[in-house]
């Protein structure tokens, strides 16, 4: 039973991917699209095999950065979300500031951050966190607000402390929303990290992107993006898995 569904879980997306790549290959060949505009899958997949070592190494650097950036974005996102959802004043003061900061095209700041902090990890983490925390924040706010106010009757009548109310009532109620924020964030984070590395790093897939672009090596470029996307798909699957494990009542 479970084995069959496991198989499906892997086979079905795989089928879609293969389909996508085949259509891509046919289109590129059919319309004779030059490689420097859009390489055929066969080209960049070959490139992937050739360059697997470098891709793996930089891919790992990027993955680490994504994970760090994700945590650095999600944790403040959750804290702010809680404050915003619970305290009207916090909502009125913090939310506009958050939207304001979020509305600043922070990517433009990448060169400035590079000037301030050099090629260190800090500006990369900062940028990633700044760009990624918003989805978690917004979804968590909705989640914390979705709690039926009458549940507070229950928690208060038990004399629950602040922490107990949070951990036993509010957090589980908001959890499905928070996970949906995570699903968005983890995917956004991949893109962001790649762009940030492209602008501001000496390692990672984004840095390789820069190299590939400089030398007009589009097969390499797409090989890199393919790897990045696979990382994203994998991380996204991890979030789904975590959701299944942590929120068993959604499955029942």
């Amino acid at each position, binding site marked *: 039973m479970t084995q069959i569904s496991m198989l499906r879980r892997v086979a079905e997306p795989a089928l879609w991917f293969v389909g996508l790549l085949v259509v891509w290959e046919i289109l590129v060949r059919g319309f004779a699209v030059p490689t*420097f505009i859009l390489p055929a899958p066969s080209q960049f997949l070959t490139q992937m095999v050739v360059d697997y070592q470098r891709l793996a190494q930089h891919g790992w650097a990027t993955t680490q950065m994504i994970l760090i950036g994700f945590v650095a974005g999600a944790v403040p996102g959750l804290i702010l979300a809680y404050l915003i959802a619970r305290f009207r004043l916090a909502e009125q003061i913090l939310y506009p500031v958050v939207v304001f900061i979020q509305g600043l095209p922070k990517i433009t700041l990448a060169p400035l951050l590079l000037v301030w902090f*050099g090629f260190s990890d800090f500006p990369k983490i900062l940028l990633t966190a700044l760009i990624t925390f918003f989805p978690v924040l917004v979804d968590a706010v909705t989640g914390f607000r979705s709690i039926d106010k009458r549940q507070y009757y229950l928690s208060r009548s038990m004399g629950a402390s602040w922490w107990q109310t949070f951990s036993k009532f509010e957090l589980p109620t908001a959890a499905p929303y928070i996970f949906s924020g995570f699903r968005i964030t983890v995917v956004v984070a991949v893109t962001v990290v790649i762009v940030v590395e492209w602008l501001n790093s000496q390692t990672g897939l984004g840095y390789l992107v*820069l*190299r590939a*672009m*400089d*030398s007009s090596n589009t097969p*390499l470029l797409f090989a890199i993006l393919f790897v990045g996307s696979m990382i994203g798909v994998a991380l996204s699957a991890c979030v789904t898995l975590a959701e299944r494990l942590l929120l068993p009542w959604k499955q029942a």
Partner: protein
Amino acid sequence: QDHVSVQMNWTADSAHLGFAMAESLGIYDEYDLDVEMIEGRGSAVAAQLVATGQVDLGYADAVAALNVASQGAPIRIISTIWKSGQFGIQSLADSGIEGPQDLIGKRLAVSPGSAMLPLIPVFLRANGIAEGDVEITNSSENAFIGLLTSGQVDAVSQTPENIVVPLAAEGIEANNMYFYTNGVPLASLSLVGREDKLAERPEVFSRFLEATARGWQEAMQDPEAAVEALMEMFPETEHSREALLQAAEYSFASVCPGGEGDIIGYTSAETWDEMYDVMTTAMDLSADRPVADYYTLDYTPETDVLCN
């Protein structure tokens, strides 16, 4: 050995052949220098990193460096390596664009935010072309090759290394027209230092300039070896040997625009005055400080290193 860190303008390419050659031939060792070349992300960033003191020297386009300096950054250009501008206009060979006048009525793609942007109006004016006569469209430079080959634009503004060389690799012939030779006589990639750091170890920087100039001289003599040296110094580079070799021609032309006998890395005070004139009159650079505030010839090597 004296340590000198240099913030490069970009990732390693033909603009850094001279440095790689100096390193690989042991010239820097000879001058008792321990040189660290750091790949970068644009000239402005390099100039700013010098200003914040994170590196000893920067390798940046003169226009960008002067712009940073004019906003109060305590930096000075100590040597102009690429004495002629790197930017220009590229078009497919069969487009019939040979000179500036041929651009009239054509579509020209420019990348917003790029360093060539301020140069284009100067270039047009110098050639008596009204801005409305050329249809300028804004597009990311990463689309340039596609736009050119698909015929969506007639010309693009970039460096020949970034357009002509990769097109050649695809078997497509293209032309380049430098701004420098068409009415915009501005220097390009230059070494920039911060005033206090320069004052601290004047003689070290002097040595560095001489060693570097000699590196370029050697590179021009043996381009293959220079490319080899570059690939050894920056093994991560994606550029192919052939591409680097082709680009080297453009690079060397910029180092020695005056041809044989030109002094590598040296721009005279008179030329500086002319450049400053162009920048303050045609390019909005503030003229409240004299040009002598922005450059110094104090570190120029005792003995001139000449082009051959």
